[in-house]
């Protein structure tokens, strides 16, 4: 993955080794800035935006309606009961939080690894993280039954004279997810500051000047500020990298620390993290492919980006496949009748069809990504990404439901099926997520302008007669 733009001597777009460029040819500082900010500054909102926003906003209203009904009636409107007390709420929570992970991976880990191609996708991938975490957070909150007491999860001196149980992964989850949400917001906002200043300086509307002016906090591009900014950005990336790994590890602890067969497994943390990145990159592709086509951003989100993301999806998908394999092997080979039964029940029990559907869509179908023809065909890639997203959702469904519905005592076995309110909540959060994405695309620069400008060879200081000439001039 070394297709970064060559040094100052070469134009971007002519890297020589035949690799596609990370930015189209012929751009200047001004045209990069105008191309990106024109989407935000445009007076007229495109019709396609309105249609997309209307659909997702309607679904978001369905979510709000569900939440109101839930608060009125209680969690009994969902299909959960004993023995399957977690159901869709936890399935969706893990799914959403996993999707968020690709945003942090792109913005932090790829920055530390000097992957220049991250530049045009990191901004909206980070936005995706924030919105996915917002959707994820709703589920455990509402699943509590009395969400208005959510603050009981935090350690604060109270008249009941009790404290949270810090030995419980559910409390770790509270800290992990709230830290993750906060740090993602900070990282995103710090990245936005210079671009907010750009919009502030070039918008024509008074309202925009004030609004973006407040958000940009008076950024003026001072060299002293840039230096501190770069230090901060790099350190935040260094902090976010272990954070993103820890968050999904803690999420997997919700399962792995329990002694339930099928959950109590040390492979959960690594394979959850890989699965999170897998689904996250799928979501980035689902967002990026229509976006670049709709706004004509093919010069910024190029074939390199799509192909690299496809390769990461393939790699993490293989890790996930390995996880399934080891899980099955350990279950069957463990010599523990409960573990063994749980694995056989997962494959051939009443929910077996979901297991095999999962293997098909999450392991078998993504193997088409080995073919370069598929990786370089955006519509095809889009479909594969959708398949992976549904596969990762199925994975959580299989893990949560099959382990819970039959435990040690056959007398306590039961079945689970979601109600219409489970579905309306799930589809509602998808609408909520996309509604937020649409607002973000309209009102904030979805690609980092300052970082894209540094991809141009002109952004580098030349240490030759150029500099000498300027010095002699005085």
């Amino acid at each position, binding site marked *: 993955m070394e297709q970064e733009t060559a040094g100052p001597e070469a134009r971007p777009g002519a890297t020589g080794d035949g690799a596609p460029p990370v930015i189209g040819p012929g751009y*200047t*500082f*001004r045209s990069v800035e105008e191309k990106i900010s024109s989407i935000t500054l445009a007076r007229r909102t495109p019709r396609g935006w309105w249609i997309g926003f209307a659909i997702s906003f309607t679904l978001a209203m369905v979510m709000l309606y569900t939440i109101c009904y839930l608060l009125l009636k209680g969690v009994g409107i969902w299909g959960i009961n004993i023995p399957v007390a977690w159901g869709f709420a936890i399935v969706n929570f893990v799914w959403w939080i996993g999707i968020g992970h690709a945003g942090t991976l792109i913005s932090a880990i790829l920055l530390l690894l000097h992957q220049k191609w991250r530049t045009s996708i990191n901004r909206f991938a980070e936005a995706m993280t924030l919105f996915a975490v917002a959707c994820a957070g709703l589920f455990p909150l509402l699943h509590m039954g009395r969400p208005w007491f959510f603050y009981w999860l935090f*350690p604060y001196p109270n008249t009941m*004279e*009790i*404290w949270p*149980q*810090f*030995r419980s992964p559910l409390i*770790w989850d509270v*800290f*992990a997810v709230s*830290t993750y949400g*906060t*740090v993602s917001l*900070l*990282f995103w906002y*710090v990245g936005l500051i*210079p671009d907010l*200043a750009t919009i502030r*300086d*070039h918008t024509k509307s008074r309202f925009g000047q004030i609004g973006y002016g*407040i958000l940009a*906090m*008076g*950024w*003026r*591009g*001072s*060299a*002293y*500020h*840039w*230096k*501190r*900014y*770069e*230090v*901060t950005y790099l*350190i*935040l990336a260094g*902090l976010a990298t*272990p*954070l993103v790994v*820890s968050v999904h590890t*803690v999420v997997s*602890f919700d399962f792995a620390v329990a002694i339930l067969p099928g959950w109590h497994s040390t492979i959960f943390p690594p394979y959850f993290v890989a699965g999170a990145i897998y689904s996250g990159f799928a979501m980035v592709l689902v967002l990026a492919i229509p976006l670049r086509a709709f706004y004509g951003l093919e010069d910024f989100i190029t074939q390199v980006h799509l192909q690299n993301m496809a390769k990461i999806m393939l790699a993490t998908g293989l890790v996930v496949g390995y996880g399934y394999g080891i899980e099955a092997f350990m279950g069957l080979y463990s010599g523990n009748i409960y573990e063994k039964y749980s694995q056989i029940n997962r494959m051939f029990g009443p929910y077996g069809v979901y297991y095999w559907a999962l293997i098909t869509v999450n392991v078998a179908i993504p193997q088409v990504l080995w073919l370069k023809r598929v990786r370089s065909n955006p519509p095809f890639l889009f479909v594969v990404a959708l398949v992976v997203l549904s596969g990762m959702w199925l994975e959580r469904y299989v893990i949560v439901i099959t382990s819970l519905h039959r435990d040690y005592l056959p007398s306590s076995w039961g079945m689970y099926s979601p109600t219409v309110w489970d579905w309306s909540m799930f589809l509602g959060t998808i609408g909520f997520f996309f509604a937020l994405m649409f607002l973000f695309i309209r009102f904030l620069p979805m690609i980092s302008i*300052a*970082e894209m*400008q*540094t991809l141009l060879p*002109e*952004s580098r*200081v030349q240490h030759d007669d150029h*500099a000498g000439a*300027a*010095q002699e*001039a*005085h």
Partner: protein
Amino acid sequence: MATYPGLYGLLAEFETPTALVAAVHSARQTGYTRMDAYSPFPIEELADALGFRWTKLPLLILLGGITGAVSAYALQYYCAVISYPVNVGGRPLNSWPSFIPVTFELIILFASLTAVFGLLALCGLPMPYHPLFHVPRFARATRDGFFLCIEAADPRFDRAATNQFLAGLNPREVSEVPQ
């Protein structure tokens, strides 16, 4: 040293990052000290040219992280050992392995908050008003303009001589920045 009431400094605009860095070098060689350079994106050599090599931010962030670690562990110790001890099969109350996840998360949280608020504090942001915003061309500093501003507070600053010096650096334009 003459004072110029109502004048913040002189602002020269350059075409390229290379020209700006060269201009900063010349200004430093000439003996100017109170100046700042402005660009739409970070230029590594610029801070070096201004003689700004070290920032205490990393140290602050480290302190923030350490504060996070100590307070997180202290909080959990207080809750689980002192204030509300729960005896689970005689296991130790100070069960440190299960206190690690929260400690780790709070290290990251405190360090990140220190990083961002430290950045803003050291840069003096938010600062909605700055004299430079009076200059209409300065809007290009967030698009494709590269600026050097020598401030009137500089001991060597002289309205005419500094103007001439900046004009000699081959800028696109030199303008006065009102206070």
